[in-house]
């Protein structure tokens, strides 16, 4: 194990709203994640899993606490620096897909590469390859409205992995998929993790899916309740 972990959260809290309406979704999270790890986050609905993922994905800022990613103190960064961190290091799969409507699967997957400034030819190739990896060969020119929930999910995954990010954050990536497709997607994620060394942080409700991870943490009510490392991988 390297001396300093890839990600370290300490004392992270998140309060939504103000005054009487204020609601504390995270009540002090401490978590360290090593590079190359595969972490599953479990917990009941409303326990703060998505909130944590959003903070980890630099999409939202914590109310207090510190977040270090790759020796960078994230809460001290400017908006644009956080955007560059998202562009170059992070891939995010949203719980609600968040694909651009009326835009083909190919163009959706290309989008992060356009912002990275990839030339058109390699961009198309990479986007096609990513779609093929998630089993959507032949669906490139379909728009989200023409795809099933599971297919949209896979487009969202393709968009997150097309850049080969250092960290892949996935909020219930198999939430809408049948068992067989779930297994295929999980095998893909495992291979990205093992072959390319991509660090994976994944939220899931299903123990079967969590079983693919090397480490599982449980959230309850804004706290980190348990943290277990799979023995067979250790």
């Amino acid at each position, binding site marked *: 194990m390297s001396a300093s972990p890839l990600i370290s959260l300490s004392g992270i809290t998140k309060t939504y709203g103000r005054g009487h309406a204020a609601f504390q979704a995270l009540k002090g999270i401490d978590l360290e994640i090593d590079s190359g790890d595969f972490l599953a986050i479990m917990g009941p609905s409303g326990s703060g899993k998505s909130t944590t993922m959003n903070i980890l994905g630099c*999409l*939202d800022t914590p109310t207090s606490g510190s977040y270090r990613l790759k020796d960078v103190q994230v809460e001290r960064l400017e908006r644009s620096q956080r955007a560059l961190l*998202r562009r170059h290091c992070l891939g995010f799969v949203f719980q609600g897909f968040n694909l651009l409507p*009326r835009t083909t699967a190919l163009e959706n997957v290309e989008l992060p590469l*356009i912002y990275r400034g990839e030339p058109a030819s390699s961009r198309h190739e990479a986007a096609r390859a990513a779609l093929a990896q998630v089993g959507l060969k032949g669906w490139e020119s379909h728009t989200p409205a023409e795809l099933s929930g599971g297919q949209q999910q896979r487009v969202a995954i393709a968009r997150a992995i097309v850049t080969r990010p250092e960290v892949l954050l996935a909020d219930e990536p198999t939430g809408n998929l049948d068992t067989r497709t779930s297994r295929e997607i999980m095998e893909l994620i495992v291979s990205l993790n093992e072959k390319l060394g991509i660090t994976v942080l994944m939220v899931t409700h299903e123990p079967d899916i969590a079983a693919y991870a090397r480490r599982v943490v449980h959230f309850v009510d804004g706290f980190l309740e348990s943290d277990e490392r799979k023995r067979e991988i250790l």
Partner: protein
Amino acid sequence: MFWNTLLLSLRAIRRNLMRSFLTVLGIVIGVAAVVVMVTLGNGATKSVSDQISSMGSNLLMVMPGQRFGPGSDAAPSFKSADIDAIKSQISSAEWVAPITGKSATTVYQSKNWPTVVSGTTNDYFHAGNWELSAGRMFTDAEERGGKAVCVIGETVRQKLFGRQNPVGSEIRVKEFSCEVVGVLKSKGQSGMGSDQDDSIIMPLRTVQRRLTGTQDVSRFTVSVRKGASIDAATKQLTLLLRERRKIGENEEDDFRVMDTRQITQTLTSTTKILTMLLSAVAAVSLLVGGIGIMNIMLVSVTERTREIGIRLAIGALEREVLLQFLVEAVVLSSMGGIVGIVLATLSSMALAHAMNIPYLFDVKINLLSFLFSAAIGVIFGYFPARRAAGLNPIDALRHE
């Protein structure tokens, strides 16, 4: 970087084809309305001043009575002797043309055409800058003897003779027949809406004897010699006429002397007011177009805010997103502006042709309405985006 932004903007336009189309349409209508109105107004003004300057800028028109226009309020007409007196006593008067007119139907073979017959002298052609496209003016003998000869305007020639050469033919005017000796070169529509080419000119005597039956001259035109003062000539003329018409010192003139400048001013100011009114109406349509665009943009704000959230979440910089929206707005509104201007140019050319007024391309109004429409597009396309791009990505994504 720029090409990528352009690519993203064009994709966004294609993705929202209906919205883009409506935006462009709003701008097209606004721009086209303003440009057409102003262009036609300018054309009308130009046509009025052209017509008047084709009469010559140094003309005095004298008519009995104080009312503007033909006819008189019981004031006596002029006599041929008045004309002679002016010719001999006012040195700055170059040409003095008495005019007495009557409407009459003219007939040639099976065709007939109602027009105005004016009795005058050769001075009329010189004073009014009339040129002949065929034939000749009157001879002294014809003028003195009141012979049945005439010079016809271009419109009359077309109506009666078509492609034939009229010179030498006889036409019938009322009960007498009359030889065509010349044809006037066309001057076109006059500013007052009447056709200057729709007339027949005969010697004064002929008209007095055969049509009006009096020795009266209903009005006359004086052209002032180059370099001489028009105001001085007006004053001299007024004094002379007052004396000849025996108007007492405290009485008002019972005739009116107008110079072409005055007429030009009156008429052009009328068309200018008309242009302004039309432009105001057109400006309203530009505004309505703008409000339409605003509507379309505001309705789509939710969707676009989420789109911005998605872009930010996958690593777009705020300024990249803004640039994309700016390019998108500029592309749409300039497309609308260009289409609007092209449409306006074509339709104002066609309308100007139909209305018989010149077509003038007005750079200023084209530029102005283009910029205005571009500003609308940019303001309503860009500023909502600016708000959204300043949000946390996650808040933009959650926007409802």
